[in-house]
């Protein structure tokens, strides 16, 4: 790490890595094999005592590996001294762990100083990072106790990023933040990660956080065993065993909705009508249609509203309608939010528009429930990820 240019994200591989604490009968981590492609977030999740933190800490040798190896960017972590290695691997610790006796700027400058950067370079980097995390530069000279929990958490991330590590370890990074701020910080971090593209090992005990943050999720069970390693979608659709199924939770079907967008399913089509069109024409289209109501659209194909039986009793389609088209959904909307919109509006159908506001189809509650009961089709869409110990 000798430049300020973004450190290249590195692949992280656990190769049958095991940990046995001296005197302990059981292994804390048992022959863990994981392959985290560069630039991805791998979430280690599991009940407390499952060895997820121990596993993560093997990657920066905060926990020494008993057997097997962890390889970062093709080099074994054992090739460097622990302190050398740790300066090259970002670390966001549980409870944030800012140094209370150092100012925010000094906290962020920790690793650059250990690496012997000069004053100007360190100061420039600190300034850059505070801007990156959106912290008021005035706070740089404050002490951690003077900042809110959310601000401290961001500083913790900035400190880990200071020397541009290719790999970051994050140990329950949002655990010390209240639930309302947690969601905001998670989103903020995902935006940051989209920009930085670091390889990240992320530990949490919260399956919802894992599903939200992870490109891949490693579910661990007691005794440091890997229960399943898969993408979030694959995990929800095809839990490897009863343990994973239980851990993921009974509402996993609903959780899956959070992972997909309205445009991902086959939408229904409603008969379309224009203002002034002959009603007889519309009534004929309604026979045998997927959606038993006709939707009025304008000349730009934007939905205007639904036609009622009373509307259709007239000679032509009237300009004024009883039923509005709301809620109008977008193909990019998250399915879970779309379902919530449908339920809230107490309606069966909602028109879905594309990016230009033109009608793309109709989403119905029925489509969603059919989708939830048909796992097979989706498994094909996402090829099965590796599933050891299956």
């Amino acid at each position, binding site marked *: 790490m000798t430049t300020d240019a973004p450190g290249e994200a590195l692949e992280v591989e656990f190769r049958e890595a095991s940990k046995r604490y001296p005197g302990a009968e059981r292994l804390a981590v048992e022959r863990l094999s994981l392959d985290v492609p560069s630039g991805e977030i791998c979430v280690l999740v599991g009940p407390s005592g499952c060895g997820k933190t121990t596993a993560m800490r093997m990657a920066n040798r905060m926990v020494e590996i008993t057997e097997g190896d962890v390889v970062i960017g093709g080099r074994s972590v054992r090739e460097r001294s622990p302190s050398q290695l740790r300066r090259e691997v970002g670390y966001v610790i549980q409870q944030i762990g*800012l140094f209370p006796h150092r100012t925010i700027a000094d906290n962020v400058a920790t690793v650059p100083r250990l690496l012997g950067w000069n004053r100007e370079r360190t100061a420039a980097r600190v300034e850059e990072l505070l801007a990156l995390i959106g912290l008021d530069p005035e706070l740089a000279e404050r002490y951690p106790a003077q900042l809110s929990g959310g601000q401290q958490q961001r500083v913790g991330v900035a400190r880990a990023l200071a020397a541009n590590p290719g790999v970051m370890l994050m140990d329950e990074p949002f655990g010390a933040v209240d639930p309302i701020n947690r969601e905001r910080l998670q989103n903020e971090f995902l935006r940051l990660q989209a920009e930085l593209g670091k390889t990240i090992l992320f530990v949490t005990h919260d399956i919802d956080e894992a599903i939200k943050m992870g490109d891949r999720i490693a579910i661990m069970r007691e005794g440091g065993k890997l229960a399943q390693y898969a993408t979030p979608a694959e995990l929800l659709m095809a839990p490897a065993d009863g343990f994973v199924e239980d851990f993921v939770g009974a509402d996993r079907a609903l959780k899956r909705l959070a992972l997909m967008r309205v445009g991902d399913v086959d939408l229904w089509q409603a008969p379309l009508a224009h203002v002034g069109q002959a009603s007889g024409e519309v009534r004929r289209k309604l026979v045998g249609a997927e959606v038993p109501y006709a939707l009025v659209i304008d000349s730009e194909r934007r939905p205007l509203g639904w036609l009622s039986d009373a509307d259709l009793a007239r000679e032509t389609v009237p300009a004024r309608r009883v039923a509005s088209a709301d809620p109008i959904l977008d193909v990019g909307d998250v399915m879970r939010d779309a379902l919530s919109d449908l339920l809230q509006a107490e309606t069966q159908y909602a028109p879905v528009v594309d990016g230009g506001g033109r009608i793309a189809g109709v989403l119905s509650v029925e489509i969603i429930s059919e989708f939830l009961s048909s796992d097979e089709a989706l498994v094909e869409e996402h090829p099965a990820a590796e599933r050891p110990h299956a």
Partner: protein
Amino acid sequence: MLVALATLAPIAQGSGGFVREPDDAATNCVAENTTVCVGWAIDNIDRYVTPTLQHLEMVVLSVVFGFAIAFAMALLSHRRRWLVPGFTGVTGVLYTLPSIALFSLLLPVTGRGTATAVIALTLYTLQIIYRNIVTGLSNVPGEARDAGRGMGMTDRQLLWRVELPLAVPEIVAGLRIATVSTVAIATLAIFAGAGGLGAEIYNNITFKTGIVVCGAIAIAMAIVLDALLFLAQARLVRWRRQTPTVAGPPGRFAGFFRRLLGPIGARP
């Protein structure tokens, strides 16, 4: 104990009594020796300068040496926790030795004088200072230590950059207790043949005004040294007095208190 006193007393007598100056009201007051003679004390304050400086010298030297030794012991036992009970035990035994007994043990080796007194007083400070450094280091929040290590600090860097700075409040607290108690115990240095306020009291043990003046000087010395250490601590642990600014808008007295506290709280 009485035997020890009896054998040590002749040594102390050597310093000689005080000369009563021929003066009017003050002389009468001193001659009667029933109350504290304020006028005499003011006129004769000069005679207490030398004992006070001797006393101060013993206290400062003892605390400085005591700190140096206790600090070294604390660093030695920091990564070798098994040493802590041993060190605590040894310093504890030293602390409970009667000072007069300790002086008489040292006298044949180091002879009469300040050196003997300082050696004994130094040994007395070890227990308090050592225990406070150890406590301070072990009270360092685990996550700060974990963060330091996780950022790639070596043991030495962790100690000097994280652990010791965070232990400063406890370390200074130990120094303050040690200093104040040494001011008191140093009055017994007379039995080691050293000067100081103790010698002044002992040599004129029947003179009420002298005893009160010496006592007042000792108290003042303790208060001043304690205050100096407190100010040193306030400068070293500025981070600790900072209160969160997110608590809400400042009350209407905030400005007033800030101005009041300004000289202490202000940054250089």
